[in-house]
């Protein structure tokens, strides 16, 4: 908690009276008492709350579907690829067909990589959402 040098005594007193917890730096605006927080608005299903939620929901859904699209274009495309490119099954690597190696060993690193990327981006979405909600 940082003290603002320009804060008047009056706002400081008012703040002390209503203070419950501090989650972000104060902006300089005056704060009036019966002001609904975004969290309580979402709970009350107000229009603004709807918009907050809709934004997060859409961002998370887009992210999830995007990663799954990547899954479909990599691992999911393999059967089609094997049918369309028979060379992959004819060509050998260490005595086994390339397609065999791709399937038995190659898929797992791709899956872990996609998952890792998803977790990072999903947490970033949530942090951005938390910032918006608590600032407004």
């Amino acid at each position, binding site marked *: 908690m940082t003290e603002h040098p320009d804060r008047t005594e009056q706002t400081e007193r008012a703040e002390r009276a209503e203070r419950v917890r501090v989650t972000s730096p104060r902006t300089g605006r005056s704060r009036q008492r019966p002001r609904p927080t975004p969290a309580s608005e979402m*709970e009350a299903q107000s229009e603004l709350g709807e918009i907050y939620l809709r934004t997060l929901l859409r961002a998370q859904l887009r992210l999830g579907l995007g990663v799954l699209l990547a899954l479909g274009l990599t691992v999911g495309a393999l059967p089609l690829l094997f049918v369309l490119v028979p060379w992959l099954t004819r060509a050998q690597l260490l005595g086994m067909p390339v397609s*065999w190696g791709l399937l038995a060993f190659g898929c797992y690193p791709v899956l872990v990589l996609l998952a890792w990327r998803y977790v990072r981006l999903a947490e970033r979405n949530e942090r951005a959402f938390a910032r918006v909600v608590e600032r407004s």
Partner: protein
Amino acid sequence: MLDDTGTVLGLLSVLLVSVATLAIGSWGLRLSRTTSDFFVASRSVRPRLNGFAISGEYLSGASFLGIAGLVLSNGAEMLWYPVGWTAGYLVLLCLVAAPLRRSGAYTLPDFAEARLHSRGVRRASALLVVVIGFLYLMPQFQGAGVALETTTGLPPWAGGLAVAVVVLLNVLAGGMRSVTFVQAFQYWLKLTALLLPLVFLVLVWLGDGGRSPADPGLVSAGVDGLAWADPIDFAGDHPLYSTYSLMVATFLGVMGLPHVVVRYYTNPDGRAARQTTLAVLALLGAFYVLPPVYGALGRLYAPGLAASGSDSVVLALPGVMVGGLGGDLLTALLTAGAFAAFLATSSGLTVAVAGVLTQDVTSRRLEGVTGFRVSAVVAVVVPYLLSLVTREVGVATVVGLAFAMAAATFCPLLLLGIWWRGLTARGAVAGLVAGGLLTGAAVVDNLVVDRTGGWIASLVGQPAAWAVPLAFLTMVVVSRLTRSQVPAHTSRFLVRLHTPETVRVDQG
């Protein structure tokens, strides 16, 4: 191969795993006191431990023995099973993991009821959990019978019985908390048990000149090396359909498996649920590269098993390739791993099924923990008896059907419940019934009739590709028709599912 030393060592390893499981279980018992502990470890399991536990629970006999056997007898197209079983966790991660945890429900029926405020949806979900659980438990008992028969020569029913008894003792003693520790231990046991013998086997193979199992000149059971190593060559007439249908079943089925879902409630929050899933993906990937190698080596050293009892190839290889005391010791280690696999998955399923039975059937007559114990007995005994009377179709095939059923029922319920405001209770019930009946009919057909060739065989053998879209469609259409009945609290519930815990909405 079945000499006396081998039999003694095999029995000893089974005994050791059972004792270790029960010992760690009773250590957990001292920590578990309340009904909540029994079900979901009071939600205090850290992501990494939970990741070990989920992986340990998930890697069943189908993974430990079944994949290698399928690869040996059917060839490379069976490699889609482990890939799908892992990729399912990515789908779960992207669309379900965090919201499911935030829903705050214990089981799938809990989620259904909380989301739709309907006893009907709850009952339909509870019934499906029990059916899928039984379907998944059955092959575990059958597989345990095969494993014990191979290494010790005991009759097939004995292995299943041994698993049933140990699981029951363990679950009755400690419930979920002890199961968490047990399963984390069993992940490492399974990985070691598969990895260590493989090092010796590969050395022997290299010493023998390292012949490729895909050698075109290598013909066994009428299949030459090239056909065997072709990843698009399902036994049926429509390989591309079968492959993609299997993908649909496994990718979408994981999220609907009762024993997987119940573990998500043990995460402290939604973020931890994601971290846990990431850990699970890495752990499963590390494990699943091993069984195909056993299958490939089996083609060179134990081709006879391809026709008769390929599920035992993993256990048979050390005896054939190494032999002597060394071979017996490695076989004993593999037996321990296989037994751990049957125990872990069966324990998890038993807890999940018993949890649902307790809440929905016995809770009215028996108080908390007693009701759970009675349910656990039912959850073990019924599938064990079923495993004795159904025809043996192979561990991985039956497990595959359980996935198809989960994908056609709980997957639409979860996805639409989490992401779509328009879902109604009637829509959900209609979808669950449609998906359950369609895949259920396919399951019965597979277990009873032996079909070969043609579209019917392909469609029934891999029902997910048509059953899952139909279930989704039913759920959406009926929900639209009953749109006036969208539950009033829908928005509020979705806020709870998607709001990160750092933002303190009153979570009710």
